[in-house]
């Protein structure tokens, strides 16, 4: 007998779209009894102002909805299930207590426009978080407003532009290394800068002479990522900052990789003028299947007048004490967010900082770097290493050794899924052909890493001995490889009733 249409095998469920489950007349909500007279919308709003069609929303009981989304959830890989070594994304453990604290009514139930006198706990938390991020990074001031790393980049580039314009200079170029993340050039371009790509050296890092050559008076600044996206520390960072500063440029630091440096070195001490943090990477706020993140932007004092407003500060006794909003930034680039930013993430990141303290933060970075170097040490005899040098928090392999087998990075990634792993970041950074970028984070135990190593070694064997098995992977997921070309050629971007 064929099992019910809902069940495949064991606890692996098939699940239609929620619209296909809809049964007219089912109810999944309960509204309070109205204590005011009912009104006729057509009378109040005018007949032209009332919606006449039904939106495409399902009719389902609460049980139906809970089962639907619970079943969908079982189709996801997640940090809570196992190693999620997505390079550049810092998929570390997301502490549960942070979730609980962010849901306290005094945080989750507050309104961004309620008077400061009724928001003192929230404002104090913002001031404290700013101070702690400034100390970790060596920056002077931090705006928490940007909603993600890319918006932090935008804020930083806007401040760089404002700084030059304030000095009567109109510079038109931003330098971006070829190993940079795509958001870097996109953020510069969004602010109408021309982007000039700087090649990395043969050793995978940036060399002062390459920066010198590009550093004309037209250049507003450079965007550095340190450690860079190969997991390598930019050893010449101090010299590069000097070269850029000497020509009147500024240095932007992409802080996505700060998890390598906490308590060990500070971007502000390296010569960086402005940087963003990814609270959803380094400071443990969950990625949520694509966000929300939080991308605070930190600056040295020379850029402080340009910070987005409002900022928050401790008020002097003469001002009544406590904490308040601060709009006194004469050259502010303005607002980037409708409110203060992704505040719920501030609560979680602050809880994380308070849980770890100075020693705990440093230990995170130490163990993250230890884990990455351990993986590299145990994989380098089998997989080609793009730049074979000691790494920081992540390492980049490639599929070069697999070339004779015809197996590619994509195949390795998909086969890892069969073994229960989320694949590493693949085909990035762009300068490594067939890149496999592995960031284990400090959350992973030795036995977890060993299992991952054995798996990658097994896949390398399979590539030689049973390539078809690897090429057709994944075999054990609810879906086999999905046709991305078809999706892009004939875009179907919503469900429609027949």
């Amino acid at each position, binding site marked *: 007998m064929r099992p019910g249409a809902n069940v495949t095998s064991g606890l692996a469920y098939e699940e239609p779209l929620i619209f296909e489950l809809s049964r007219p007349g089912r*109810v999944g909500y309960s509204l309070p009894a109205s204590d005011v007279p009912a009104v006729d919308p057509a009378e109040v709003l005018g007949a032209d102002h009332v919606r006449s069609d039904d939106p495409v929303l399902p009719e389902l009981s609460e049980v139906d909805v809970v089962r639907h989304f619970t079943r969908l959830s079982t189709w996801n890989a997640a940090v809570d299930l196992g190693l999620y070594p997505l390079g550049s994304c810092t998929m570390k453990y997301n502490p549960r207590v942070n979730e609980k604290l962010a849901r306290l009514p005094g945080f989750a139930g507050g309104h961004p426009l309620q008077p400061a006198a009724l928001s003192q706990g929230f404002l104090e938390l913002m001031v404290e978080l700013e101070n702690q991020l400034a100390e970790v990074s060596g920056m002077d001031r931090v705006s928490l407003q940007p909603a993600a790393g890319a918006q932090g980049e935008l804020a930083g580039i806007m401040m760089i532009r404002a700084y030059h314009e304030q000095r009567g200079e109109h510079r038109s170029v931003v330098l971006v290394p070829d190993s940079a993340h795509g958001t870097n050039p996109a953020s510069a*371009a969004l602010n109408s800068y021309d982007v000039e790509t700087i090649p990395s050296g043969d050793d995978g890092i940036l060399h002062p002479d390459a920066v010198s050559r590009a550093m004309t008076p037209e250049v507003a600044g450079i965007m550095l990522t340190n450690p860079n996206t190969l997991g390598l520390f930019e050893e010449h960072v101090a010299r590069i900052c000097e070269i850029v500063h000497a020509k009147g440029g500024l240095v932007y630091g992409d802080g996505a990789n700060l998890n390598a440096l906490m308590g060990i070195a500070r971007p502000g001490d390296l010569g960086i003028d402005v940087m963003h943090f990814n609270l959803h990477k380094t400071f443990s706020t969950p990625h949520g299947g694509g966000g929300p993140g939080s991308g605070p932007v930190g600056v040295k004092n020379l850029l402080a007048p340009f910070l987005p407003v409002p900022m928050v500060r401790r008020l002097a006794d003469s001002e009544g004490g406590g904490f308040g909003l601060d709009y006194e930034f004469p050259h502010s680039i303005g607002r980037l967010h409708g409110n203060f930013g992704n505040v719920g993430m501030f609560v979680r990141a602050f809880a994380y900082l308070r*849980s770890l303290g100075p020693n705990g933060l440093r230990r995170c970075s130490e*163990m993250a770097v230890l884990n990455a170097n351990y993986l590299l040490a145990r994989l380098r005899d089998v997989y080609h290493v793009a730049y074979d040098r000691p790494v920081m928090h992540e390492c980049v392999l490639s599929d070069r050794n697999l070339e004779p087998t015809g197996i590619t990075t994509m195949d390795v990634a998909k086969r890892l899924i069969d073994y229960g792993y989320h694949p590493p970041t693949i085909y990035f950074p762009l300068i490594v052909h067939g890149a496999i970028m592995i960031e284990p984070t400090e959350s992973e135990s030795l036995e977890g890493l060993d299992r991952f190593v054995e798996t990658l070694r097994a896949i390398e064997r399979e590539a030689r001995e049973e390539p078809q098995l690897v090429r057709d992977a994944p075999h054990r997921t609810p*879906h086999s490889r999905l046709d991305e070309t078809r999706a892009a050629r004939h875009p179907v971007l919503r469900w429609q009733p027949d």
Partner: protein
Amino acid sequence: MSDRDRYIPHTPDEVAHMLETIGAKSIDALFEPIPDELRLDRPLDLPAALSEQELTAELTALAARNANTDSHDWFLGAGTYAHFSPSAVDALIQRGEFLTAYTPYQAEISQGTLQAVFEWQTMMASLTGTEVANASMYDGASATAEAALMAMRLTRRSRVVLSAGLHPHYAEVVKSYLGGLDAVIEVAGLGEDGRSADLAGAIDEQTACLVVQRPNFFGCVEDLAGAAEAAHASGALLVVVVTESLSLALLPPPGALGADIVCGEAQSFGVPMSFGGPHVGFLATDQKRVRQMPGRLAGETVDSHGKRGFVLTLSTREQHIRRERATSNICTNQGLCLLTATIYLSLLGRVGLRRLAELNLAKAEYAKGRIRETPGLGLRYAAPTFNEFVVTVPDSAGRALERALAEGCVGGLDLAPHAPDLGPALLVCTTELASRDAIDRLVGALGAGAP
């Protein structure tokens, strides 16, 4: 190891074994690539670590110093709305498989997220009356700025006209985003009844788009068909902004009235106010404009066995492929918040969402009736409203709000900083959370300043 290391598994023996495998003498040796003079030579100056129990006490004390919807009756909206959310919503989004996953790059093990995004796109396209909604923007304000940029790309024009009824923070964000570009931003006037006026006069052949909010910042329901006509007559696009998404259940979909891009904030759909974020911006348009759209999109496809599944698609618009030529720099969006909204909309459903919107309308009409009959109070604008409206008060907005607070009410927004010409006036919002008794107390308190 100390008991402050609960998030890190390594034991000292394991660390020693790993160092040996690497061939490094010590942890410190791992950091050799960092030149000595660049290293921090002291511990970070941060407060010492807390246990979970101490942490909970500290943050609970901070939270207790904030007014919130549990501690007060709530009449403050202005872009962030106090609504009730069913318990199932928050329970489901805390499933670790949703909470602790990344952006769904690897489709085969991200079908849960991808299918939910596809469902969200379907719901938002339908609610807004468009064909394509993206997988969220940071918030309503940046969505509006991105919509203006998109309109500039589509029309190759550089003037942007904002209605005076656009949320002032949204207008500020549009100005910041367009600040580095060769763009001109103008603001069209507000008519006596609270709706945009003279739109046609503000638009010319250089106008890329007209941006109109419905209901607008003052709560008034704008005439979108008229706005569309004014914009289209000069070849400009109409961008409609929605900050109170619940209104979409009751008001005609903007797309059906001529909007070319619909964007805004879907926080009302079950997302906590949380002092203003994380919320969930959205941006929707028709299929023919999709290649200029910012943000991620989930699309339907099949797997190698022909089974339906979903992937991120049309990514040649995006920064990771197109870099400096991308339509936007956005990468991480507001994934978990769009999931929140999708679950909320699934529970409320076709009928429930409409009934809830009608309840909001009824509360507002009741409150407006009480205000009309209270000496000293007035309704500033005659245009129809949804769940928010402008109340003129007899003395000063600040004193009126203090009286409301004494009655346990966070009474609304003082409009003086945003619209000084109005005189003493408040923006007051009544959602399903506002009981009749609380509305009566609020109205009594606001009116108590009458001579």
